[in-house]
């Protein structure tokens, strides 16, 4: 594949996306607009979770914890001064006196800054947490990251003066529109895709395929894991910032196991390790759950949508464990060569070809990860 072709593909996809957003905007349908925003946020969450769970194979259940931190950090930063005084009267002085809601023309530059601050702070938290958790392996990462999710929730509920505790947090300016949500989504996809093609990405995929083999040929384990975890947390927080400035009111209970399960379903349905797969998975599950919710509201049979999604997820795990894409990516070449056949997805694809010209000479490679 020559780079110019990839560039063409990227430009084409972005153009198509812009066309869809423009059309939805033209139609003026608030329902579809909010669906598009939600989809964009879920694409960010799924693609960024894929960096950890898909690339390195460590199953993180704490991703929504990062999102929740992003939600609250950015919301506190952009809340207007009057709202701060009435909603969060006990906020410490250094946070009380300013509000990052400045507009430069039509662009909410203050919010953009708040999003970046939230992302960086959360990434730092992820660095500290990851330095501990990324040393674990296999299923124990799942248990430990679940612990992280619970810790975040307990802190959010108890840090009353910052978060209003378990009461709803409202009054955040709704800056998020389709352009912002999908703009960030495109950045997330681009970063994930670049990481996948980089030596770091190969190191991640190699340890997922066979940790012992990878380690025995000198591929570092811990540092690529940490990189994946930190970058993934950054974008998790960005998704949180978008969510906070989209939903009029929220409380800590929103960012817990239900949404965690939803994102994991998207990830697995799309294919662990495939960036474009994550996008497809998010589209499939958002469409499915929006449809089911409609049925649920009409029939008043609450539980139907969750039950159907659970059965669907179970069926995918048992009958098509590689999801839609496996570890491959959608590309123009691939499309030309026909859509994926089932036999292409099996074992052979779980180990990506390791490009040995890049790995041993990698100047960043630490001597021994453990």
């Amino acid at each position, binding site marked *: 594949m020559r780079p110019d072709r990839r560039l063409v593909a990227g430009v084409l996809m972005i153009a198509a996306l812009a066309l869809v957003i423009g059309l939805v905007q033209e139609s003026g349908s608030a329902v579809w607009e909010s669906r598009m925003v939600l989809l964009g946020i879920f694409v960010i969450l799924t693609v960024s979770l894929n960096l950890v769970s898909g690339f390195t*194979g460590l*199953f993180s259940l704490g991703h929504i914890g990062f999102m929740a931190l992003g939600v609250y950090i950015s919301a506190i930063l952009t809340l207007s001064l009057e709202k701060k005084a009435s909603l969060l009267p006990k906020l410490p002085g250094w946070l009380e006196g300013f509000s990052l809601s400045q507009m430069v023309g039509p662009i909410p530059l203050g919010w953009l800054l708040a999003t970046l601050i939230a992302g960086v702070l959360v990434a730092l938290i992820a660095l500290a947490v990851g330095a*501990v*958790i990324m*040393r*674990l*392996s*296999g*299923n*124990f990462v*799942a*248990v*430990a990251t*679940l*612990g*992280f999710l*619970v*810790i975040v929730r*307990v*802190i959010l*509920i*108890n840090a009353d003066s910052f978060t209003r505790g378990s009461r709803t947090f409202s009054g955040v300016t709704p800056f998020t529109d389709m352009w912002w949500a999908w703009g960030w989504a495109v950045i997330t996809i681009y970063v994930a895709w670049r990481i996948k093609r980089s030596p770091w990405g190969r190191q991640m995929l190699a*340890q997922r395929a066979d*940790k012992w083999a990878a*380690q025995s040929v000198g591929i570092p*384990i*811990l540092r690529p894991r940490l990189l994946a975890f930190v970058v993934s947390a950054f974008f998790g927080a960005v998704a949180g910032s978008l969510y906070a400035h989209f939903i009029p009111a929220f409380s800590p209970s929103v960012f817990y*196991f239900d949404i965690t*399960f939803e994102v*994991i379903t998207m990830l*697995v349905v799309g294919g662990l390790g495939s960036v474009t797969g994550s996008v497809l998975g998010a589209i499939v599950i958002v469409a499915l759950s929006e449809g089911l919710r409609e049925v649920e509201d009409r029939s*008043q*049979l*609450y*539980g*139907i*949508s*969750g*039950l159907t*999604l*659970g*059965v669907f*997820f*179970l069926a995918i*795990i*048992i009958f098509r*464990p590689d999801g839609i894409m496996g570890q491959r990516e959608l590309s123009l070449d691939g499309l030309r060569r026909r859509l994926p056949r089932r036999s292409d997805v099996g074992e052979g694809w779980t180990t990506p070809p390791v490009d040995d010209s890049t790995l041993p000479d990698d100047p960043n490679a630490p001597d021994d*990860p*453990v």
Partner: protein
Amino acid sequence: VGDYFLQQGTNALSAGSLYAMMAVGLALIFSILRLINFAHGDVMMIAVYLFVFAGFAGIPTLPALVIMLVGTILIGLTMERIAYRPLRGGPEVALLLSSFAVGQILQNSALLVSRLAGKPVQIAFPAPELLSGAISLGPLMVPKLNVASFVIGTVLLVLLTMFVTRTRLGLSMQAVAEDLPAARLMGIKVNRVVTVAFAIASGLAAVAGYLYASQAGQISPYLGFTPVLKAFIAAVIGGFGSLSGAVLGAYLLAFLEVIPTTFAGIADILPAGTVSPGVHDLLQQFLPSSLASYRDAFVFVFLILMLLFRPNGILRGRAREETP
């Protein structure tokens, strides 16, 4: 003040017994299948729903308890057949994900059935008359439910120990846990062992669920979440997969949990004059009663540290090839 500590101690014993019944089930299944069964809490929840709905159907308590026990075991076995058996031998993560799906299915089934039966999401669950009230033990008033949890838990765990160490089936269970392929070569029927393990785990979860719901006073489809988290921690403390470790971990966790509740706000409880005013102020400053609400955060920080420093549990079981 002494009584106060004793009282917290009896609370811990009772909570520990509940955690132990759940943790042993998790450890049993993990030791055989290397599956961390996230749906275990939902199995417990389903048990309570079976009991409650049997009650709604006009079935008296005793037969309803039988229905609960048998029904939960059948559901546990069905779950193993449909969701776990096809994935056995595959990657660990597939089993883990499958257990999420099972949990999701069980929770939403309970929600849907409540809806169809015209019941609210939260259903009241009064403690049975036999177990309500308290008995006095010396200076202490201990709720009968706490005593029952402790006694029932201990009896069941002793029975389980006898089963695992004294019977042929129990021994073959240990063999499969140690080395599945070798056990199979020795002629042990692995499927039967797995079935028995799920039956035991589900039965224990049902009993624990009944006691837990009686203490909570009401039930919802999400009631299994907290207990299963506690059981995870207990199992991790004991070294995941070790049965005795899980029991020990459960009691340790229960005592660990009452520490913040006991000592946070201790300054307000101490009778005047026991400590000097300076110490009193220090206590009030560093152990305010608001600290108690951070209990779960402390417990999970402890869990992560355990995983990091003693991944094989405090009993130091056989070394497992984990950590990178």
